C-alpha cells in the first residue's frame, strides 16, 4: 500500500499505454505512407511542375484549368457512370448467391465456376472482353449477326465504349459480391426462417423482411468494395481502350495517370489536382463508411 505512489508513471498508466504502443507502428506507417502523400498531393496541386525542373507556385491555377477542361468533365461523368452501374454487381451477386445456396450434388463445382472470374487478373478480364467485342471476329458480333442484327463496334464507339468496359468490370465484381453473400447466407439463422415460414412469409417477403436484414453486414462490405472498385477502375480502361476513342472512356484515375505519369504527361501539378478531386469524391464515401461503422460499434457496445 505504501508502494502505491512509488510505482512508476508507466506502470500506473499501462492500461492506456499498452494499446497505444501496439498502435504506434501502424500509426507511424499510416502517417508516412498515407497521410503525408495525401498532404503532398494537395501541396503539389498548387504548383506547375514537370517533375524535373523548378516548381512554380500558381495557386489554384490548376483547378481553374480543370473547370474548363473538357477531358476532365468527361472523366468525371464517366466516374459517375461507373459508380452507378457498378452497384448492379450487388443485387446480381445476391441473386446468384441465393440461386447457388442449395444442396445439390456438384454444387461446389457450380460455385467455383461462378467464382472463377474473380480469380482472374483484371488485365485478363480486359483482354477477354476486348476480344469478345472485336468489330469483325468478336463473339458478340457473331451472335448479333446470327440474330440478324447489325454488327457494332462497342469499344470504338464513344457513346458505348464506357458501358462496354463497365460490363467487363461487372463480371468479376459480381462474383466477388456473390462470395460475400454466400458466406453471409451460411450465417443466416434457420430458426428465424422457420419462424417466418410459420407466419406465412414466402418468396419476396421472406427475402426482404427475414433474410436481407440478416445479410446487412455482407451488404455493407459488398457496398464498400464495389464503390471503391468503381472509383479506382483503371486497369480495364488501360487494357481495353487506353482511354479512347478520343478520350471518351477516361475516368479520373486514368486521366491523372495520363497527365502526371504517362509518356506524354509529366504535369505533376495538374495530375495532383485531379488526384485531389478524386480524393474528395472518395472522402464522401469513406466518411460515410467510417460513420456507419462507428454507429454499428456504438450500438454493439450498448
Amino acid at each position, binding site marked *: 500500500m505504501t508502494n502505491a505512489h512509488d510505482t512508476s508513471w508507466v506502470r500506473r498508466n499501462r492500461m492506456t499505454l499498452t494499446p497505444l504502443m501496439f498502435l504506434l507502428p501502424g500509426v507511424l506507417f499510416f502517417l508516412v505512407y498515407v497521410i503525408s502523400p495525401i498532404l503532398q498531393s494537395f501541396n503539389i496541386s498548387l504548383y506547375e511542375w514537370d517533375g*524535373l525542373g523548378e516548381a512554380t507556385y500558381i495557386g489554384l491555377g490548376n483547378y481553374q*484549368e480543370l473547370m474548363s477542361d473538357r477531358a476532365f468533365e468527361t472523366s468525371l461523368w464517366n466516374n459517375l457512370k461507373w459508380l452507378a452501374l457498378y452497384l448492379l454487381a450487388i443485387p446480381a451477386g445476391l441473386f446468384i448467391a441465393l440461386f447457388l445456396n442449395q444442396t445439390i450434388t456438384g454444387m461446389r463445382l457450380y460455385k467455383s465456376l461462378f467464382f472463377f472470374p474473380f480469380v482472374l487478373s483484371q488485365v485478363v478480364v480486359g483482354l477477354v472482353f476486348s476480344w469478345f467485342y472485336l*468489330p469483325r471476329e468478336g463473339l458478340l458480333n457473331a451472335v448479333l449477326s446470327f440474330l440478324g442484327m447489325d454488327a457494332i*463496334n462497342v469499344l*470504338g464507339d464513344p457513346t458505348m465504349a464506357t458501358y462496354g468496359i463497365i460490363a467487363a468490370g461487372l463480371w468479376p465484381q459480381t462474383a466477388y459480391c456473390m462470395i460475400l453473400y454466400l458466406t453471409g447466407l451460411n450465417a443466416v439463422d434457420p430458426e428465424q426462417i422457420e419462424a417466418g415460414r410459420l407466419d406465412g412469409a414466402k418468396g419476396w417477403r421472406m427475402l426482404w423482411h427475414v433474410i436481407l436484414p440478416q445479410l446487412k453486414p455482407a451488404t455493407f462490405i459488398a457496398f464498400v468494395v464495389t464503390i471503391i472498385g468503381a472509383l479506382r477502375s483503371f486497369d480495364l480502361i488501360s487494357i481495353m481502350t487506353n482511354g479512347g476513342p*478520343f478520350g471518351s472512356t477516361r475516368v479520373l484515375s486514368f486521366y491523372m495517370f495520363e497527365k502526371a505519369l504517362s509518356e*506524354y*504527361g*509529366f504535369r505533376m501539378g495538374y495530375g495532383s489536382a485531379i488526384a485531389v478531386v478524386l480524393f474528395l469524391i472518395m472522402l464522401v464515401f469513406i466518411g460515410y463508411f467510417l460513420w456507419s461503422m462507428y454507429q454499428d460499434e456504438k450500438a454493439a457496445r450498448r
Partner: protein
Amino acid sequence: MLKSIKTSVATVAMTAGLTTGAMAADLSGTLRIISDMSNPAPRAIMEGLAADFDAMHPDLTVELEVVDREAWKSQIRNALTANPPDVINWYAANRMAPYVNAGLFEDITGMWEGGDLPGLDSVKGAMTMDGKQYGVPYTYYQWGIYYREDIFNELGLTEPTTFDEEIANCQKIIDSGRKCYTIGSKFLWTAGGWFDYLNMRTNGFDFHMKLATGEASWTSDEVRATFANWRKLVDMGAFIDDHQTYSWQEALPFFVNGEATAYLMGNFVVPHLREAGLTDDQIDFYQFPKIADVPMGEDAPTDTFHIASGAQNKEAARAFLQFVTSPDVQSKINGPDGLGQLPVNANASVADDEFIQQGFEMLSNNATGGIAQFFDRDFPAEMASVAMEGLQEFMVFPDNLEDILNRLESARERIYQ
C-alpha cells in the same frame, strides 16, 4: 603481355574506325549503360556493342542494363536524377527538350565541333537545341507508303507521284472491294503520321515546323487545307473501318490478307510483313506523293545515345558515343542482320535491302524540304497527345473538325505560352 594487348586493342580500334587512338588506350573504371533496345533483335545488337567495347578496353568494365522500351519512356526521369548511368538511349529533337532544359543531358557540343564525330553532319540538326548538341544518333528509318505490289499489278496501278493519282488509284482499289489504307489508331500516333505527311505535302516542311513550335495556328487556312485533303480520303472510304479499335500491329492482317492495299508506316513494318509470309514481290514502297508544289519533307525518326550530365565516367561515355557512330559499327548494327535500318554515318554502307535502299535514296535525294522526326517527337509531348486524339476523332467523325480545331488552338495557346 601488356604490350600485346595494347597492340591488339589498337588494331580493334583501327578496324572500328576509331582513328583517334589515344581515346582507346587509357579508359578505365566502369561504364554504365542503360538501353531501351529491348526487342529481341535490337537487344542482341546492344549486347554485342557493349561486349565489343568492353573487349576493346581491358581496364574498362561495361555494365549494360536493358529496360523495356515503353517503360523507359517514364523511367528515364528517375534514372537520370538518382544515381545516373553514363550512357542512355533516347530520341532526337523536341523529345530531348525536357532533359536538356533540366540540365540532365551532357552538352557534347565540343565533340561535334572538335571533329570527334566525322560523317555525322547530316544528322547534326536533330541533335541540336539552342545551337548546342546533346547526344549522337545511332539509327534512323524512313516513313512512307508500303503497298501490295501484287494487287497493284492485278489492278493495273502504278506508284502514284501526285495526290490526284493517289486518289484515282484509291478509287480503283475501292471499286475492287478493298480498302486503300490499313491503319490502327488505338494508340493515336499512327494518325499523327498521316497528319505529318498531309501537312508537309500541303503546306510544306517549314509550315509544319511552325505548327510544331507553336508559331502557326491550328485554325489557320493552311491547317484547314490539310484537313480538307485528308477528308477526301476519309469520305471516299479509303481507310479501314473501326481503326480506332486496333493497334498498329492489329491492323497488319488487313494488309497481309489483301483487304487493304497500303500502309503508311515506318520501315520497322517490313520484318512484320515478311514474317507474315509476304514476299518481296508482293510488297513495295513509294514516297508519299506530292500535293502542293512544295519541297518534299519526310519523317525519319532518329534514335539516339546521350551522356547523362551526372555520369561518373564521361571519358568512357564519350569514347562509346564515338564508337557507336563510327562507320564500321554503323554499317554493322544497321545491317540486314542487325536493326535493318539506316546508318547515321555518311561513310557507312547501307544494307543491300530493297526497302532500306529505297529509303536511303529517298532521304538523300528527294527530301529537299527537310527531315522531320515524327509528330509526337516534333511537337511538345502535351500538344502531341491532345492533337493526336483530335486527329483520331477527325478520322472517325470528320464533321467534328471545327470543334477539334478550336480545341487544339486553345491547347496551343495554353501550352506554348
